């Protein structure tokens, strides 16, 4: 973490919350959660609410599918923290080997054609937004998703375009696999808001 005040907490209340949650959960509270507490008159609460809506709100996609989308964006953006955090949640609802295969090459992975179509669309959005066209969207729709589901996938891609960038820029501490797994449990119980 390149900004120590985020790690510590910027108010007495936040420092106490960070210490308490770390103690009760038995893991160092991840940097993503410390950022969520920090400078919360700025964009944090709104970003948290949008993340909650995109990742846990009503959708034709399951929670695991959306977490796989987030981990995929993290792979394309080379964000080791987000790859770890979101694949750890995805495997709570999908087989580990399936998640690993999808992150390595979603086109050949044993996932639905609909999910492959969504990943193909959000890969273009992630890597080359200037190149994304209506034909790319039509290809995704032909894979079997609704317009709402395509829009939901785009929301995950846009949000993780943001999160992966600040996670990398701030150099988030990378938890152990065991701590990523504990944090995944917290994310499933508490969500993102």
């Amino acid at each position: 973490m390149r900004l120590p005040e985020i790690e510590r907490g910027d108010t007495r209340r936040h420092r106490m919350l960070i210490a308490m949650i770390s103690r009760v959960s038995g893991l160092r509270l991840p940097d993503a959660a410390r950022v969520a507490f920090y400078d919360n008159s700025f964009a944090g609460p709104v970003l948290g609410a949008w993340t909650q809506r995109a990742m846990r709100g009503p959708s034709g996609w399951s929670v695991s599918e959306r977490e796989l989308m987030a981990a995929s964006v993290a792979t394309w953006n080379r964000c080791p923290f987000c790859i770890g955090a979101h694949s750890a949640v995805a495997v709570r609802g999908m087989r580990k080997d399936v998640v690993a295969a999808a992150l390595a090459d979603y086109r050949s992975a044993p996932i639905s054609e609909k999910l492959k179509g969504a990943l193909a669309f959000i890969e273009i959005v992630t890597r080359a937004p200037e190149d994304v066209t209506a034909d790319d969207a039509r290809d995704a729709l032909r894979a079997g998703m609704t317009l709402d589901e395509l829009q939901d996938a785009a929301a995950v891609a846009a949000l993780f375009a943001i999160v992966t960038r600040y996670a990398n820029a701030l150099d988030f501490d990378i938890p152990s696999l065991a701590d990523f797994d504990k944090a995944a449990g917290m994310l499933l119980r508490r969500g993102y808001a």
Partner: protein
Amino acid sequence: MQSIAPSGRGAVDRTLREGILARVVGGQAVAEPYDALVIRIADDSSGVTDAEVQEVLAAAGSEKSAFEIVLTAAIGSGLRRWDAAIRAIREAGDASS
């Protein structure tokens, strides 16, 4: 999604925040050392260095300001992708309706 654009209160001057949002979609450079970090975050965030963040921290004068600069560059990059995706989806949706 547009509501997450940091246009409200912040430690960083609104003009700089708006400049950063414009910069990540191809607008004019903002002042250095902010511009170098903003472009790095937009184009290759995994390549951001300690030195780049420390220079921005020194110039901005506080960790909150440095944080807001980082977050604004990241948010602008996300909004750029949201806008591109939604334009494509709407055009595909209009043609099929």
